[in-house]
């Protein structure tokens, strides 16, 4: 239970950070000219000043910035994320509706990247400087260098437009009403291209890290000892090397959870997925402060919980870490 204590302490330490981020975000957004009523006017294509005045009162934008921030923080204390001006619903509801696609996308992209990164990294390390290594490393470099939106669009052109194998976007086929297994398969089909698009860049990172740390661990003394004991090469890799080489990979998952949320903005736009990333983008464009702050809050919680899981995994992989704390 030491691990849990460590994780809880970290959770407590992240609370002030969270508040600072929220306040900073609030003030940063004030620097952008225009408010939600201006965005609304743009959408309406016109309107008069009296109407704008009335709407500002309606959305609580007629008081000063300090008062607005104060109101927000007070509400947050009671875990009330406020009301969304764009959606006309409580922010918590809006976010809950948009959370599943993002989480699903993150999990599938992360597992895809982690699994294939691991396998390719191991293969590359075991065939170091031979053709499989060269091929894998080159591919990794290409994936890493390629902008994900471009890859996404190219994947759409090839797999949706020309081959017509996979849908070009959306989270399900709305012209049909599927249930049960069919619905799950339908969602899975829609997630293939977005997962590839979001996952490839992370795959490239994982495979490079895995290759490097495998090579490092392979040169350590205990590996030589294991080989000297007469263990087969597969056993050495599986039992001794892999476990140790995986530590940096797991660290990276925690660090990249935030990056992945950022990357999902692009992927969700390209594939028109109704996720949190696109919601964040829309709330900035429409100056929906409450929703944006709510997303920041929920994303922070998400990243904190992923790191919590990583901490536990860490302790499992290397018992010294839990002991040291």
């Amino acid at each position, binding site marked *: 239970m030491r691990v849990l204590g460590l994780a809880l302490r970290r959770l407590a330490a992240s609370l002030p950070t969270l508040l600072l981020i929220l306040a900073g975000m609030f003030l940063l957004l004030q620097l952008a000219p225009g408010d939600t009523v201006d965005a609304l006017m743009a959408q309406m294509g016109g309107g008069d000043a009296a109407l704008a005045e009335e709407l500002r009162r309606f959305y609580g934008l007629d008081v000063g910035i300090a008062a607005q921030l104060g109101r927000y923080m007070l509400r947050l204390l009671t875990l009330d994320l406020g009301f969304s001006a764009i959606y006309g619903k409580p922010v918590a509801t809006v976010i809950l*509706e948009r959370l599943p696609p993002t989480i699903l996308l993150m999990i599938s992209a992360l597992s895809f990247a982690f699994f294939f990164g691991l396998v390719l990294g191991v293969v590359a390390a075991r065939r170091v400087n031979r053709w499989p290594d060269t091929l894998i490393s080159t591919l990794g470099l290409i994936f890493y260098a390629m902008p994900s939106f471009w890859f996404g669009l190219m994947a759409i052109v090839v797999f949706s437009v020309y081959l017509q194998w996979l849908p070009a976007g959306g989270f399900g086929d709305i012209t049909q009403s599927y249930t049960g297994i069919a619905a799950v398969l339908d969602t899975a089909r829609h997630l293939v291209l977005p997962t590839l698009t979001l996952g490839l860049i992370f795959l490239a990172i994982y495979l490079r890290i895995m290759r490097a740390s495998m090579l490092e661990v392979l040169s350590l003394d205990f590996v030589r000892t294991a080989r000297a004991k007469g263990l087969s090469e597969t056993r050495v890799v599986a039992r001794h090397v892999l476990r140790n080489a995986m530590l940096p990979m797991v660290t990276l998952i925690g660090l990249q959870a935030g990056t992945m949320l950022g990357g999902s903005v692009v992927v969700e736009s390209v594939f028109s*997925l109704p996720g949190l990333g696109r919601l964040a983008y829309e709330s900035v464009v429409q100056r929906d402060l409450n929703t944006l702050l709510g997303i920041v809050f929920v994303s922070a919680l998400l990243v904190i919980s992923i790191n919590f899981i990583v901490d536990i995994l860490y302790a499992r992989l290397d018992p010294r870490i839990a002991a040291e704390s």
Partner: protein
Amino acid sequence: MTGPTRRETFLLGAAAMIPASAMAQETPRRGGVLTVHFATEQRILNPSLQASTGVYIVGGKIQEALLDLDAQGNPVGVLAESWESAPDGLTHTFRLRRGVTWHDGKPFTSADVQFTAMEMWKKILNYGTTLQQFLEAVETPDAHTAVFRYSRPMPQGLLLRAMPDLGYVSPKHIFETGDIRQNPANTAPIGTGPFKFVQYERGQHIIAERNPNYWRNNMPYLDRVVWRVVGDRAAAAAQMESGQLLFSPYSALSIADMQRLGRDPRFESTTRGNEGNVRTNTLEFNFRNPILADIRVRKAIAHSLNVPFFIENFLGPFAKPGTGPIPSVSTDYYPTTPMPQYGFDVAAANRLLDEAGHRRGAGGVRFSLRLNPAPWGEDIALWATFIQQSLSQVGIRVEVVRLDAAGFLRTVYNDWNFDLASGWHQYRSDPAVSTTVWYRSGSPRGAPWTNQWGWTDANIDGIIDNAATEVDPVKRKALYADFVRSVQTELPLWMPIEQIFVSVFNRRIRNAGNNPRWASSSWHDTWLAS
């Protein structure tokens, strides 16, 4: 085998001569799902509260207006069957269609029209508040008659032309209690239209299905209409190609994609069906800057821009040079006599700037200006860069300030913190609906797309006011010709490019584009070929 007989040849020849419009005589097929590109999500879907194409694309299928436009662009009854106006223009009577029910089964009556007109059109609806500001009351002598009473003359032509956009009716029994703006029916609309609202998944799709009790017998033909929210232009083009989308309205694809898809036999890229949605590109001058208050400078700027070159190289076939605030498709109000124009003439521009006392200084620069382009549409961004480069040729340094929608509106129309601004003006069938407000002085600060340039001209204000209450159509037309001549002479703002919105249709859609505001209209007669 022998060739076709003489009779067969004749028939084939005749078939080839039938114009495309006669294709509509194929027997309509019932069924099918029409998937539509929905580029910008809307806060509400109720066209009685928000007049914008984004709302009509969805709400216009579910709710109906008193009138719509027919293929020739003339008002045709929808919820109103007939109408008459008193000669003084103070009373307008609409006889309403009988036997129409709301989607929840309640009957449609004149009380709905009265409620919507007084509480929504007059108080909340953008443009409606201006149009209906002198509406005193709507009387309902019986359940199928609505009499509109005005305190100042309302020209019948103006009212009828405004109704297709500003005349959508909402059910009184749903909206009469509580705050109208917060009513859940604003995002789950209840109407009398051919399609019933089913579901709105934010960020994903909106679904509407066939209304089995629609008052037009055996219509609509489609089972469902599904709007897919696709914000990314490239992604939307790909979905058109993969068949996930069948229709993309209002120029929502990139210019290059609209042209490319237009060359593909499966699609049609066309301005057909958008004649009622014309927009002009604007160049707005801030008169609070003394340099721009000088008419010679404004004319010099206009003369420095090679509009035909820009259109040919950047906008392609979907645009043409504009001649003033009233576009050429407005057959009722487009002036018949030539109006002052500003052709491309760098020598004249330089001469005018010299005359105005702005000699070239260091590096050949006369003075600097800030240009705020509106963030809607690729063409505005291109136009801004074109202005910047063209004006540098005559010694005017231009700094382009790019902002998003909220930032642009605040900076230009509320803070007046600009020298030049550029965006779209949308013409809505009659100059009094949304055009003259760009020129009429005395507009309150912060109202977008109104005269926020600091320009005042008592003469033009007078013409605008007289034309808005002139009941004689001939005199009205003459007044608008005066208006165009005056503003083209004074150049408070310039509208040099005329564009009609582009629709991209999958050719399976039939009866597509058969009225001038098709993308916004009800699609009761639309069907899909298999």
